[in-house]
């Protein structure tokens, strides 16, 4: 007898061997070698996971119990494979073109990437597969038990549940090691597939060996075996037609819908053409597997003692005959069947769980976006590993709960019915564009609930989950709702009953709800992509496309990255691969590198779509298109930012235009100024030249005339000098080089000096308030005098009144002295206020005398002063605001907007301080030259313009405090104010002055 320990040892050895195979295959695949890994043979063998322990052990049991009915389980898949052109081909094409990772992914993608649907399918799959996994555990456990029974020295056999637990844990470890080694973009697992293919060979070989042994070893040949079969009760089993049809359909549906079958058939598929081989090879495999089932069952029933578990005949027959080696081989066959199924199922389910349940939740809670980063991959792997463990656990729990007493076939069928619920949504989605998400959800829900109610829950046995009464009388005594006799269909087989009602109502709800709901846009797109997949996708070429693809890739890359860079990248890769020339093989690694490179230029989604187009692995999916649309949206956002920038540029342009206009104006002013200067210089020059000519000729001139002409020459020369002084003065002030030298004195003194200098002829009737002028000022008297001179001279020159009058008023105000110069002229038009203090500006259009420097000097004599046009009511203005005064003389014509409050039509006179940048703070004292004011006013030249000016310098605080600290006398306020009321023409006012 085989020692149990030996069995365990062989078992471990076998697992280690599988491990090595899987590891080697993975490594070969990673290195790009191993085309054999992707051969159609391997693909076909991997499909054989359909034949699980249920087949290996259960088929014999099935046959022993139900005769040839077991064949239905294999006829269904055979029909599906033979008819691959109509169904499987489409599934595989869709799976590849949409980069589908699981059946849940397929269904959710088809119905507009619905995550709800994906979660639902995942849950149904996990629950539906639970019995199936339990079945595998049960079969392995049973086989151990069988050996233990046959082994006399089995004291130490720990019992079923421990075996089951150990097997479950072992399978979990194996699956985790190979199923989640990495996160392949295409979810392919070369190592696992290879191990499965090997196991397929082992289990076929084992079953055939047992069969051969039974037929030739035990029965003594084919004829005798056939005779035994004839004699056996198996041949007399009457199989009802409905059960035949029902089970065949069920197994066909399950073959398509089982997550593990979907995994190997669609996800792990390397090439659509592999289906051609599988179409006949897989049915052959299944046929071979079922070939000896009946003989084994018949011989087992005949030779083994009554009551033996027929599910174990493949083990017990060799054991009974003492064929230990064969028994162990048979055991390994069964073990292979069980493990391969569990591994693939766990991988498939864990992918679904992690992709559709864990990752969305994780991303939501971490606030992550859908961008795949290294971190996310890590989480996904961890999620899969945990999922594998948690998927195997319910299987184990089910095994414990159901007591392990069920026949294997019965358990398998429960699982099949559960998986078959995906069929309407899956197939409907592939052929009918009108199918909607709501329809799929409705159908799946109804099917799932009915499956639970009619088959899954009752399978635990009466009273286990569903109470006995409910099973017999229906919920609340409603007879037609009895779980196993819905709508009064009492006489039916429970499985067929469940299949009938669940699929019927499932499909019905799917169709009806789909008809009454409208697909969303994404569903529409996806529906078209799925249903018309053959129009949308090119035939996926194999990876051996080679250099032709590389050339296409290079052409594309050159367009995007630029010629030199792309060629360098390709040549580098070619060198790396050890190839001569500049075109590398399009290995996955290289494609990834290239995709990353392109993504830098065109965005990840676009790059992926482009490479996919060329490599032909997949067509552009809606997801890709959406991603491209997102990128386009980003580009549009960028361009709208550009637009904003354009607006900014427009603004800048506007400012430039304004600046330009100002420059043009200034240029005009400059021309006018030059013209004016020319006039100013040439006029005295004309007199000088003419009279000096006359004097030179000395042609009978009397002494008086000679003296007169000489004095004219002198006057004109002085006039020229003064003009030059004015010019120089302005330029000095403009450059900000003026430094004031502070002196002390009264305002009256300064005004006296100024009036003498500016209006020597006495043309103006000047009125003053000497009392108010006794305020003591501390300032640069020369500069201040120049300001006053300019203002007074201006009034003298331009006041257009009959009897020109100038009032000079001064008034101490808020620590300042405000001095107003007010004449009785017609005033300055409002629109000219802005340029009153501009250098060279002259107001009025006809003729003007003087270069326009006077007012400029007035404004500029006090560095830091500036003049602005804004108008405000003088006294109500805050201390630092600009102030205005109103000319006394009404002026006809349009009024300025500042007029109001009874001020009427007085033209405002504006002037103001520019802020605290007072020059005195520099402390650098150096006298500045002020022009000697002309002693002769020239009334004849008075322009009909008035030039009001009113300056209101504000003395900076710094100065005030400094003065307080250093000056002794009664300095209280830094500003003095003076004003005057005045003369015919300009209403000139100046306010200013730091003072006591």
């Amino acid at each position, binding site marked *: 007898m085989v020692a149990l320990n030996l069995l365990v040892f062989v078992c471990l050895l076998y697992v280690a061997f599988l491990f090595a195979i899987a590891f080697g295959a993975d490594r070969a695949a990673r290195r790009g070698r191993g085309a054999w890994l992707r051969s159609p043979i391997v693909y076909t063998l991997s499909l054989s996971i359909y034949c699980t322990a249920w087949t290996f052990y259960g088929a014999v049991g099935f046959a022993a119990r139900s005769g040839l009915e077991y064949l239905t389980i294999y006829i269904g898949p055979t029909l599906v494979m033979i008819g691959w052109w109509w169904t499987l081909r489409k599934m595989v094409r869709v799976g590849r073109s949409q980069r589908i990772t699981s059946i849940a992914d397929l269904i959710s993608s088809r119905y507009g990437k619905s995550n709800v649907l994906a979660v639902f399918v995942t849950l149904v799959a996990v629950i539906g597969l639970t019995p199936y996994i339990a079945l595998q555990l049960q079969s392995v456990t049973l086989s151990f038990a069988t050996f233990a029974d046959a082994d006399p020295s089995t004291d130490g056999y720990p019992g079923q549940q421990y075996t089951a637990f150990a097997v479950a844990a072992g399978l979990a470890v194996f699956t985790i090691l190979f199923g989640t080694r990495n996160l392949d973009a295409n979810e392919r697992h070369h190592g696992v597939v290879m191990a499965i293919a090997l196991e397929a060979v082992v289990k076929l070989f084992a079953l055939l060996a047992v069969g051969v042994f039974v037929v030739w070893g035990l029965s003594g040949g084919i004829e005798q075996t056939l005779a035994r079969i004839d004699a056996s009760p198996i041949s007399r089993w009457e199989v009802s037609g409905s059960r035949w049809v029902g089970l065949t359909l069920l197994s066909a549906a399950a073959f398509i819908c089982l997550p593990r079958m979907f995994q190997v058939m669609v996800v792990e598929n390397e090439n659509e053409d592999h289906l051609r081989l599988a179409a006949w090879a897989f049915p052959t495999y299944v046929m071979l597997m079922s070939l000896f089932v009946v003989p084994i069952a018949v011989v087992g029933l005949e030779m083994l003692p009554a009551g033996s578990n027929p599910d174990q005949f493949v083990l017990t027959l060799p054991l009974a005959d003492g064929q230990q080696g064969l028994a162990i081989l048979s055991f390994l066959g069964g073990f292979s069947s069980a493990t391969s199924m569990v591994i693939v199922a766990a991988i498939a389910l864990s992918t679904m769980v992690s992709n559709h349940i864990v990752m969305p939740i994780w991303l939501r809670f971490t606030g992550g976006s859908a961008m795949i980063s290294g971190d996310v991959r890590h989480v996904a792997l961890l999620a899969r590993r945990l999922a594998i463990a948690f998927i195997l656990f319910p299987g184990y729990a089910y095994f414990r709960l159901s007591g392990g007493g069920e026949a294997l076939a019965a358990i398998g069928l429960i699982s099949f019915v559960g998986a078959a619920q995906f069929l309407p949504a899956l197939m409907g989605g592939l052929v009918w564009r009108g199918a909607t998400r709501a329809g799929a959800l409705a159908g799946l829900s109804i099917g799932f609930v009915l499956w639970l109610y009619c088959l899954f829950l009752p399978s635990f046995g009466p009273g286990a989950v569903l109470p006995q009464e409910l099973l017999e009388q229906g919920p609340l005594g409603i007879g037609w709702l009895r779980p196993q006799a819905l709508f009064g269909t009492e006489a039916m087989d429970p499985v067929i009953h469940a299949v009938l009602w669940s699929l019927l109502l499932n499909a019905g709800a799917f169709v009806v709800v789909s008809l009454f709901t409208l697909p969303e846009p994404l569903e529409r797109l996806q529906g078209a992509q799925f249903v018309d997949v053959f129009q949308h996708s090119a035939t996926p070429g194999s990876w051996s496309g080679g250099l032709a693809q590389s050339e296409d890739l290079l052409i594309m890359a050159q367009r995007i990255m630029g010629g030199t860079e792309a060629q360098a990248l390709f040549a580098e890769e070619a060198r790396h691969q050890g190839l001569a020339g500049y075109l590398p093989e399009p290995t996955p690694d290289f494609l990834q590198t290239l995709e990353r490179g392109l993504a830098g230029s065109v965005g990840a989604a676009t790059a992926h779509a482009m490479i996919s187009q060329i490599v032909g692995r997949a067509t552009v999916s809606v997801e890709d298109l959406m991603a491209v649309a997102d990128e386009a949206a980003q580009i549009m956002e960028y361009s709208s930012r550009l637009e904003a920038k354009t607006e900014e540029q427009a603004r800048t342009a506007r400012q430039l235009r304004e600046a330009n206009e100002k420059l043009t104006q200034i240029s005009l002013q400059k021309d006018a100024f030059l*013209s004016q200067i*020319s*006039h*100013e*210089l*040439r*006029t*005295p*020059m*004309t*007199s*000088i*030249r*003419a*009279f000096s*000519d*006359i004097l030179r*000729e000395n*042609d009978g001139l009397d002494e008086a005339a000679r003296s007169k002409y000489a004095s*004219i020459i002198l*006057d*004109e020369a002085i006039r020229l000098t003064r003009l030059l002084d004015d010019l120089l003065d302005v330029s000095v002030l403009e450059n900000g080089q003026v430094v004031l030298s502070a002196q002390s004195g009264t305002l009256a003194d300064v005004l006296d000096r100024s009036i003498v200098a500016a209006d020597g002829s006495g043309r103006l009737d000047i009125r003053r308030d000497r009392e108010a002028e006794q305020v003591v000022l501390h300032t640069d008297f020369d500069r201040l005098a120049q300001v006053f001179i300019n203002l007074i001279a201006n009034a003298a020159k331009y006041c257009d009144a009959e009897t020109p009058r100038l009032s000079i008023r001064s008034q101490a105000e808020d620590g300042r002295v405000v001095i107003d110069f007010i004449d009785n002229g017609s005033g300055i038009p409002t629109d000219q206020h802005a340029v009153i203090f501009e250098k060279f500006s002259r107001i009025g259009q*006809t*003729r003007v005398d003087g270069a326009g420097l006077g007012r400029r000097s007035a404004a500029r004599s006090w560095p830091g002063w500036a003049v602005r046009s804004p108008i405000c009511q003088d006294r109500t203005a805050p201390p630092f605001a600009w102030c205005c005064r109103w000319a006394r003389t009404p002026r006809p014509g349009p009024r300025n907007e500042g007029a109001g409050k009874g001020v009427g039509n007085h033209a405002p006179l504006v002037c103001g301080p520019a802020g605290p940048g007072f020059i005195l703070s520099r402390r650098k004292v150096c006298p500045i030259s002020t022009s000697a004011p002309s002693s002769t006013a020239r009334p*004849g*030249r008075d*322009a*009909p313009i008035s030039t009001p000016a009113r300056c209101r310098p504000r003395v900076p605080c710094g100065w005030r405090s400094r003065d307080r600290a250093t000056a002794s006398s009664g300095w209280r306020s830094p500003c003095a104010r003076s004003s005057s009321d005045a003369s015919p023409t300009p209403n000139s006012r100046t306010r200013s002055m730091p003072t006591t």
Partner: protein
Amino acid sequence: MGKSVLLIEDERNIIEAIGFILSRDGWEVTTHSNGRDAVEAVRTRRPDLVILDVMLPDRSGFDILKDIRADAELAATPVLMLTARGQEKDREMARRAGASRYMTKPFSNAEMLAAVHDLVGS
């Protein structure tokens, strides 16, 4: 010669200088020193020659010249324009307004005499 000249100029010293030179040369010199009623003065005096300054109080010399040329009775009167602005565009404006001659200040006495003789001449 007894030819009459009307000098329209506002600068006193220049009036004095030109008046002296022309009188000495035998011209009958009358003066007028504002722009407002200059045309009126020409109309009443009917001089053989008008010497017209461009920059006058109240009215530009160019405007006055235009009025003279527009007046049928006065149109033939030769007009010598004086300006203190030496720019080309002023010269051009004067030519277009119909100035018979254009002189830029300052000028020599001889130039002035030559010009007036030229204009009234023979």
